[in-house]
């Protein structure tokens, strides 16, 4: 009975440890994908094997290990390299229009479709 208990406990510890490691790895991969490789053509840090990408991967790994949050890592790197390193630029005064444009177009498009449909239905009625 004691042996089974020990085995069960060992299994639980191993699985929880593996899960923590997997979570860290997933977070790291997510961050790599959101970072632009500055020395490559259209590649993210995740896709690149360049020296720069390897260094950034190593720095991100250290920072997640030290408990830094995803947003903190992005802001650290954007402070050092500018927003250009981020694939998803943060919401700033300069980029308000950029973020709002898709929604504005969506609303305008919805209005256009609404009026066209309204008119078509009216014509069909008469």
């Amino acid at each position, binding site marked *: 009975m004691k042996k089974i208990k020990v085995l069960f406990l060992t299994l639980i510890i191993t699985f929880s440890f593996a899960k923590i490691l997997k979570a860290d790895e997933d977070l790291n991969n997510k961050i790599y994908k959101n970072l632009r490789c500055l020395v490559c053509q259209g590649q993210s840090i995740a896709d690149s094997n360049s020296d*720069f990408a390897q*260094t950034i991967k190593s720095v991100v790994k250290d920072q997640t290990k030290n408990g830094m949050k995803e947003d903190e890592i992005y802001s650290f790197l*954007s402070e*050092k*390299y500018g927003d250009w390193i981020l694939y998803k630029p943060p919401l700033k005064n300069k980029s308000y229009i950029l973020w709002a444009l898709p929604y504005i177009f969506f609303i305008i498009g919805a209005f256009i479709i609404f009026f066209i449909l309204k008119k078509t239905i009216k014509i069909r009625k008469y």
Partner: protein
Amino acid sequence: MRKIKLISILIFIFFIIITFSMGLKKEKVYDTIDVVGKPISEISLNLFNENNTLNTNELRKNKFTLINFWASWCAPCRKEHKNLLFLKKNGDIKILGVNFKDKKSNANKFINDLGNPFYLIALDEDGKKSVSFGVYGIPETILINQDLVVVKKYIGAIDKKDVKEILKIVGKK
């Protein structure tokens, strides 16, 4: 009604053309504009050939500090070296060299062969410390003032034009 429709379609097409042409014209390369005017991080660097460390806070003692990232394996570093020696000789400026991902013996040979423009040489064996300075390749050079704020950042080898600019900034010409 038909006229309004036509005008709206034309405006829309015009807007799309302008947006795309602006997007195509925009240079998609890394720019140092976001880094200039910001202070460098406070970090400790191991010193080369010495059992000591340098905290970047200590650079406040200097009116201006030129931080140069170099390695013996980097060909452009060799090319810019004479310009750094010139700056050391002619400018009221301290040059801190950061030896980047290099072998100590090769770095020592490089300095012995070409001369030493640096008042201190720090080590960055794995390149991680250089990330705190926003370095993405070498050679790179950062000019900071007494408040540790980046005044200018040079990507690539420093040329005569850059030397003139640095001397102008530090008030020598």
